[in-house]
């Protein structure tokens, strides 16, 4: 009874019985788990820029698919796989070279997106297409998307887990990995495939903003809390799912906050939850580091 009482105070009526909310909770959780797993390696490898860029780059594929009348998701995936391949192909080993390679691919793809969105809007005369492709909306998802999304998620997580050890080694020390006979290019391309799949499915379902937020935020938070890769992956997935669900709940509740009944967007709430948890993790580790310092001095 008490739990139910608290629940009804925090959760506005109809939250769990609403079909759009149910679909949003399920797909949001899937996207958060995949983003958490792939995100850890994205952060460790220093590829946040590529991860964020793919969400924008996919827009070009999405709008191309929109133009020819097929599901934008397939356009997103195809475009991102190509873009990931090109990034790895022209990217020089040094991080700065990779930064420029990502930038060039992003610039070219955004130009292409500008052209395709222009063609989309002139051929169908709906300005809504622009906004929809760019921002996505978690509450307008169709439950028929779930099977495709599950398949893509399993693929992305599968590639990451198959590559787990060589990926980890090459992320931490490229030289050591090369000395052990790990093909850096193969691992690099394999990881970009996983990243492209993960980002496509999250960008198309929950929008480009949330895609980056869930890829980087929970992973960076988890890596502040633990240095073990396995537990960091679990923590990132858990933080991502928690932030997504809390964001959806707050967004749903916000409809009742003002008399005008205009809900605040999910992306705003999820981003804020992610960011606050990142800062909180920093305070936590900061305090732990200061607490440890006298001991370290004593040892010396």
């Amino acid at each position, binding site marked *: 009874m008490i739990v139910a009482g608290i629940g009804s105070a925090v959760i506005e009526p109809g939250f769990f019985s609403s079909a759009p909310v149910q679909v949003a909770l399920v797909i949001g959780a899937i996207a958060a788990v995949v983003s958490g797993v792939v995100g850890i390696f994205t*952060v460790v490898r220093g590829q946040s820029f590529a991860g964020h860029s793919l969400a924008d780059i996919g827009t070009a594929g999405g709008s191309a698919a929109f133009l020819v009348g097929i599901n934008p998701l397939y356009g997103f995936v195809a475009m991102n796989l190509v873009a990931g391949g090109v990034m790895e192909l022209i990217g020089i080993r040094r991080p700065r070279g990779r930064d420029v390679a990502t930038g060039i691919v*992003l610039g*070219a793809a955004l130009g292409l997106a500008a052209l395709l969105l222009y063609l989309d809007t002139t051929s169908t005369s709906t300005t809504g297409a622009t*906004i929809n492709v760019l921002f996505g909306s978690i509450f307008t998802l169709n439950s028929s998307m779930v099977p495709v999304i599950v398949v893509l998620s399993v693929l992305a997580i599968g590639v990451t887990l198959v590559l787990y050890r060589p990926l980890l080694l090459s992320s931490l020390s490229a030289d050591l990995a090369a000395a052990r006979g790990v093909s850096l290019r193969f691992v690099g391309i394999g990881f970009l495939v996983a990243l492209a799949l993960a980002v496509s499915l999250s960008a198309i379902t929950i929008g480009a903003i949330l895609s980056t937020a869930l890829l980087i935020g929970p992973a960076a938070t988890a890596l502040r809390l633990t240095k073990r890769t396995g537990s960091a992956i679990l923590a990132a997935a858990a933080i991502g799912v928690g932030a997504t669900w809390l964001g959806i709940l707050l967004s749903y509740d916000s409809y009742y906050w003002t008399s005008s009944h205009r809900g605040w967007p999910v992306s705003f709430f999820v*981003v804020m939850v992610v*960011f606050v948890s990142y800062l909180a993790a920093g305070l936590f580790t900061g305090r732990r580091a200061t607490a440890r310092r006298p001991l370290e001095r004593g040892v010396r």
Partner: protein
Amino acid sequence: MFSPFMINAWEASTIVAVVAGVVGFFTVLRGSSFAAHALPNGAFAGAAGASLVGASTILGLGVFSLLGAIGIASLGRRARHDVATALAIVVMLGLGSLFLSMTTEYAPEIFSLLFGEVLGVASNELAPTAAIGVVCLTAIAVLYRPLLLSSAVPDLAESRGIKGVRIELAFLLVIALVTTMAVPVVGTLLIFSLLIGPAAAARSFTNKPLTAMGLSVVFALVTVWSAIALSYTSELPIGFFVGAIGAVGYAIGRGWAARRRLA
């Protein structure tokens, strides 16, 4: 193409190209492409916020891009730089989505801020663009030596007493100013392409900093001028041409560098 209403477009794009060529050289040298993408994109939220409270777009862009630069620099002290930048851009865009949800009159303006409206530049926008452009170039001239040293050989710069953290903040603030100046006239996509493409191509042709910077300005001017001409004649969006020319220029530069290495 050179009718009176097009004159503003030519002048504004020339100013933006010169500044982008110079600042872009350091952006590429420092590996700051992500910040050069994040600040213009995130500052767009500032424009949305400004329209909500009825302030001027340029003020909103300025406030948000400067706050974004400070945010990236301060988060970057304790985390990887790309992570700090990613967090900064999602927070800014998250606020942007909130602002957008609160206003209904904004939809057409999103498109123009993202993709630019260089053909619709008003004469009264030229003066602020030029003024901020001069500030950017002056800042780069003043910072030139420490900026170059800390970008090329960070360790040596630190040992000479140049604080990397301070240089980073100063450079991010310059990118924020470029954002404020360029986004209202050319849009977020175009300024990013102009910062990266010409400078990356220029670096393939020479190792001398001043020559590379000069080449970068020339490439930026050629890119933006031919993009305007092509866009005018084909009636396709200018952003497409700037992106495409940038990528082709970079490919030619890489090809040139590879041939020279083989020879």
